[in-house]
């Protein structure tokens, strides 16, 4: 999988690169609209992650350009503007998804991976981790070929873990992923614990091991059992 990251801030670029490093992806980075256009016209990318606020122009130009050259490329817009105009224009131009700064790295990875699945692996939509299998098309989870009944939130949570294997996920990041805007002023993220507990219970009951590890009460990590 080949990804082009168009972001002008070196620190953020570094963080994203680190975040995506273990995802079996080839990541290339550029920081200017002009450079991005050069790259796009020469190489083919599966996914392009583009920040809209670039020093030499608006990232929306690139979105338009990509869709002219290679409409199959998945496009994820990163915007700090939180401006609906930009989101709407971006999606109208053919972007597949958008994420607003500041984002949790895990969220970005989940979006990139889900985008990749949607775009490229049209046939195989099954994710596997140990004995757990998730079929994304039908939103079903199986353990040792037995269907696991999960609530919508539990399913989303499990998928989020799948997309961020072996990574620490803070409670804030999980809460934002599951509830989006409704949580942006949450008093206390302890309620996440209820969901984690339920999910753990269901997984263990069907014979899956201890996949979800809690880390000093600050977050969780999805590991090999």
């Amino acid at each position, binding site marked *: 999988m080949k990804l082009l990251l168009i972001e002008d801030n070196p620190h953020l670029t570094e963080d994203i690169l680190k975040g995506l490093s273990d995802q079996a992806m080839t990541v290339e980075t550029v920081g200017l609209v002009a450079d991005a256009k050069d790259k796009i016209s020469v190489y083919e990318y599966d996914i392009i992650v583009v920040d809209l*606020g670039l020093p030499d122009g608006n990232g929306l130009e690139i979105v338009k350009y990509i869709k002219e050259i290679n409409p199959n490329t998945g496009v994820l817009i990163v915007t700090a503007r939180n401006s609906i105009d930009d989101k709407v224009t971006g999606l109208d131009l053919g972007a597949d998804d958008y994420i607003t700064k500041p984002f949790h790295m895990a969220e970005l990875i989940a979006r990139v991976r889900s985008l990749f699945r949607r775009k490229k692996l049209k046939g195989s939509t099954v994710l596997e981790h140990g004995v757990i299998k998730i079929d994304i098309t039908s939103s079903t989870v199986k353990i040792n070929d037995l269907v696991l009944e999960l609530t919508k939130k539990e399913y989303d949570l499990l998928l989020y873990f799948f997309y961020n294997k072996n990574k620490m996920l803070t409670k804030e990041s999980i809460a934002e992923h599951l509830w989006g805007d409704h949580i942006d002023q*949450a008093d206390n993220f302890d309620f996440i614990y209820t969901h984690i507990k339920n999910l753990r219970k269901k997984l263990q009951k069907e014979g899956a091991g201890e996949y979800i590890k809690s880390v000093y009460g600050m977050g969780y990590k999805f590991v090999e059992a």
Partner: protein
Amino acid sequence: MNKKQTFNLLSRVTLFYLIFTFVVFYFNAKFLTREADEFIDSDLNRRFGWLESRVQYHLDKGTPADSLVGNSIKKVEKVSKRCKKTEYPIVEDVTIYHSDIERNLIHRRKIILIESKGQLYRVEMDKEVQNYYYFRDDIFDYLIPSFVVLIIITVAFNVLLQGYFLRPFRRILEQMQLFKVGKSEDIQEVETMTKEFVEMQNLFLKMVKRIDADYNHLKEYTEDVAHELQTPLSIIRNKAEGLLFSEKLEEQDAKVVKTIYDEANHLSRLGTTLNLITKIDNREFTDIKELKTAPEIDKQTEAVEELAQLKSLTIEKELHQEHSLNIDPYLFDIVLKNLLKNAIRYGTSEGPIKIKTTENTLEMSNYGKPLSFGKDQLFKRFVKGADNDQSLGLGLALVAKICAVSKLEIDYKYERHQHIFILKG
């Protein structure tokens, strides 16, 4: 709203013009009639004077009194010297029937005393004045119809002018009404040769340009602030997150890092929300439409039901399907989200959170302790419950701001242990 009755300018001008003209016509007619009366009087006096001198002359010459009676002199009779001289002359108008033309005609009668050779005569003179009066009354007869004709012509002109001269004015008004901030290029210039309208239009275009420039500066500024702030915040947060899970981190340091992480989150949300308020103030949300609230409320409550349950709260709804508000859907979304968030955060399990809509109100209530500050502080920025340091203190300020720009009314009361918010369209 109490709407004052208004009339269009031309009609008012016409009305005033007609009232004024009526006054002029009326006094004109009065004046002319008086002039005519004076003329009639002086003419008759001249004639009567002449008759009088003739009678005097003949009586002095010794002509018998009876032979003086003729066309205009009706009677000449001797009277006693003792008669009341002060009563004379008597002047009066009398109506006399003329059998030859079968009509009543007005005559002026003047009775005087003449002394000749020591004898007093009573002389009665008479002159037909009907034609004089006809002439006098003709003034009114002509002026009233010409005034009516004037009314008709003026009103007809008014109607024509409304259509013709005022058309550019209406078009300019239309452009003003259609004008949306940030879309000045959509304004079509209206062709007109009327100086006042040209001036008005120029002024309007100048204002639009200024408004647009201000709008764009503010928009750019908020977007720049958002971008320049959120990017470093992203970095701080990611780095802190990385540190938080580092194996080498001591527990004490982890607490410090956690604080940095939390504060970065707080700052980021604060920036986003303040920006949102600025954008609302700048009226960047212009997708105003009549929005049915029931489906929106269902959607929002479904999303937070679980969060409410985790606090052992239930949400009860009583929705009027036809209740609607004129508002940008995105803004209504924010209003609902914030009211719900508020209700869940401050609600106690004493009773359910209730959402009720009627034909024209939306009410949301939750049980809880009374406010620890004044009711007038509730919708102000950075006012929050004493026991809640996680809150931004901006949610209700945001709601109030949205209501203000969307011309909705929001009210709050505390009754029977319940905080109640009432939204009226």
